């Protein structure tokens, strides 16, 4: 038996073909012998039977013609007798030509002999004259002719019987052959069918069982169970397939284990990193259930990660503010927010500790929202420093204002000339003092505002407004000043703008400050300030553009820092733009500048629109 499946299939089909060919040949042989035996019947018996029957008929007619000759005057009797004699002899010749049976020869010889004598006797009978002696004629007939007639007829009957018997025998023989052929064909067919079935079963077992086995193992592999081996002996296609399969499974197992090890290693590393971060970290899923707490966070809230995994945040950490942050982020993970942190107070050993909590949504591949992560920084120290700074600024500004009050009062007294008349020069000096004391006052005020803004103490009164209204109001304030220096303010504002959510007094302050700044650096005359608003991506971009002297890159970089102003240009506290920045930030916007020397300056800032 060949080893390959292809070879096996071919040999199987050849075998089936051989079986069918053999059984067909056997059937053909049987049909042939059947046909031969039928031919035999036809050839050997049928002709003799026909001849014998005709011979009997002919001789009987001859006997009748003889009798007629004896007892009538008819002239046709002799000719009738001769005609039938010819018929008899013709059939006798045929019978003699077809001797097939044992004894047939002897029978025919006796018929021939008797018949010859019978003819001779008739010739003698004709020679007798019936008128002469009817009795002699009658006696001759009964004594000589009639026995010959009977014997000839009997001989013919014998011939008939021999051939009839033989025919029956042959018919029986043919019947036997046919039955034998039928039985043997059935037997061969049944045998070949059985044999075929056995071969099919064996073959399909040999081919299909390993394939089924393979399918099962592949299924297991696809379920992630890589530890699969196929044991198929031999070197046919299936065995080769099994070999390749085993190789693949081994490799898969190897990669899988390797990957798992690598993943484990990476996971351990990440966990170790998260654990060692000196700030607290808490991760929750979308339902605010805790997924991770690092060591520092455990310390802060006096909890253990193992006891609170998958528990609701509020059950574990009783801090409404912290929960509020998580809830807001998890409820609206795609919302942009300016202030993503909140400071919370936690009592640790009866001491108030301040923590700054940043909560951010966790988005896997930027689409799927998993939950939120909080970074909890200990800002107690910063809070203390902040408080000190705040107290300091407050004290300093108070300390500044007290002497400024008497200076202002004194200057007022002098200008109103209450203590006495002043000379032109003196008046000029007092004016200078007044101007600088005002500047100092503004500076102190701004310093205080800025420290409030920076520490988040400034209250924001956010309401829905149209920015254009703020523009109109601010332009009015600067109207007289612009007329004095022959400058113009142009608005470029599209219709149907959305409302923005702003603290109107602080926004007015920002726009006034930007316009005031611009006016300070405008060419005189011919100054031009353009105010514009554009609405894109959920916010409005406001621009304040002037055709003033512009500034270099270094200046642009530091323009929003405290106390940075064009050194060569007089006037203005250096805090205005820092305050603008803080106010815009508090609105959730951004501020930046674009400028070129002698080409003018444009300040931009953004404000989120009301959704």
């Amino acid at each position, binding site marked *: 038996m060949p080893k390959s499946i292809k070879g096996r299939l071919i040999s199987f089909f050849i075998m089936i073909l051989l079986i069918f060919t053999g059984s067909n040949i056997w059937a053909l042989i049987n049909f042939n012998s059947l046909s031969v035996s039928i031919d035999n019947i036809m050839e050997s018996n049928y002709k003799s039977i026909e001849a014998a029957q005709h011979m009997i008929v002919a001789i009987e007619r001859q006997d009748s013609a003889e009798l007629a000759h004896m007892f009538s005057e008819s002239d046709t009797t002799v000719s009738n007798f001769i005609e039938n004699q010819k018929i008899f002899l013709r059939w006798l010749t045929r019978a003699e030509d077809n001797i097939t049976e044992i004894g047939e020869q002897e029978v025919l010889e006796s018929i021939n002999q008797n018949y010859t004598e019978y003819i001779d006797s008739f010739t003698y009978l004709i020679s007798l004259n019936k008128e002469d002696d009817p009795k002699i004629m009658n006696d001759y007939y009964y004594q000589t002719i009639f026995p010959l007639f009977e014997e000839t007829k009997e001989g013919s009957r014998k011939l008939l019987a021999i051939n009839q018997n033989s025919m029956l025998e042959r018919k029986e023989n043919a019947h036997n052959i046919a039955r034998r052929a039928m039985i043997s064909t059935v037997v061969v067919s049944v045998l070949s069918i059985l044999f075929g079935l056995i071969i099919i079963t064996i073959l399909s077992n040999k081919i299909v069982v390993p394939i089924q086995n393979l399918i099962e193992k592949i299924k297991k592999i696809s379920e992630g169970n890589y530890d699969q081996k196929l044991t198929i002996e031999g070197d046919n296609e299936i065995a080769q397939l099994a070999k390749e399969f085993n190789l693949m499974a081994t490799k898969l197992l190897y990669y899988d284990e390797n990957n798992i090890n690598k993943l484990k290693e990476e996971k351990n590393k990440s966990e170790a990193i998260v654990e060692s971060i000196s700030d607290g970290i808490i991760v929750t899923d979308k339902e605010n259930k805790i997924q991770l707490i690092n060591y520092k966070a455990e310390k802060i809230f006096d909890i253990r990660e193992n006891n609170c995994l998958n528990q609701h945040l509020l059950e574990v950490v009783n801090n409404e503010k912290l929960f509020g942050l998580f809830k807001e982020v998890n409820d609206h993970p795609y919302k942009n927010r300016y202030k993503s942190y909140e400071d919370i107070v936690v009592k640790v050993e009866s001491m108030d500790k301040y923590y700054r909590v940043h909560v951010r949504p966790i988005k896997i591949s930027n689409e799927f929202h998993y939950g939120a992560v909080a970074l909890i920084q200990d800002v107690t120290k910063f809070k203390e420093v902040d408080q000190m700074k705040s107290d300091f600024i407050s004290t300093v500004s108070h300390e500044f204002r*007290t*002497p400024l009050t008497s200076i202002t009062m004194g200057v*007022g007294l002098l200008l109103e000339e209450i203590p006495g008349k002043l000379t032109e020069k003196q008046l000029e000096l007092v004016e200078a003092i007044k101007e600088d004391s005002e500047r100092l006052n503004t500076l102190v005020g701004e310093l205080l505002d800025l420290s409030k803004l920076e520490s988040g103490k400034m209250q924001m009164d956010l309401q829905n407004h149209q920015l254009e209204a703020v523009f109109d109001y601010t332009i009015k304030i600067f109207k007289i000043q612009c007329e004095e220096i022959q400058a113009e303010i142009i608005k470029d504002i599209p219709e149907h703008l959305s409302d923005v959510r702003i603290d109107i007094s602080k926004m007015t302050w920002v726009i006034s400050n930007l316009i005031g700044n611009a006016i300070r650096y405008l060419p005189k005359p011919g100054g031009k300030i353009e105010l514009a608003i554009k609405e894109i991506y959920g916010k409005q971009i406001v621009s304040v553009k002037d055709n003033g002297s512009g500034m270099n890159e270094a200046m642009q970089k530091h323009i929003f820092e405290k106390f940075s102003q064009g050194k060569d240009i007089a006037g203005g506290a250096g805090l205005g733009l820092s305050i603008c920045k803080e106010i815009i930030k508090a609105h959730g916007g951004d501020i930046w500048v674009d400028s070129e020397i002698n080409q003018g300056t444009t300040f931009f800032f953004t404000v989120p629109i009301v959704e």
Partner: protein
Amino acid sequence: MQKILVIDDEKNILNTIVMYLEGHDYNVQAISNGLDGIKAAKDYLPDLILLDLVLPDIDGYLVCKTIKEFSVTEKIPVIIMSAKCQQIDIDKAFDVGALDYIMKPFEPQKLLEKIHHYLKELV
């Protein structure tokens, strides 16, 4: 001539205010601490009091509150002058009965306007 009581511990401020208001024809009494201020209010019965918040003995809130508790002085309008500028300070001043709050430093004319305003109301 209308009488104004000024209570402030800063000598320079006190002097300039006194000088300025006298220049504008007011009768001005100047006091530099809280307890003397209360006494002066009762004795002197000014038409208006200018009061600083930070004083060496008791603070301006207590002075104002005390003045507002005496029936003889309760009707006298008190204007607080202070360098304190937080809303909480301002609210507290109104709580203890001050009529107005003027932030230091101020323009002398501003102060004068306020004084005119409240004295006119009084008449």
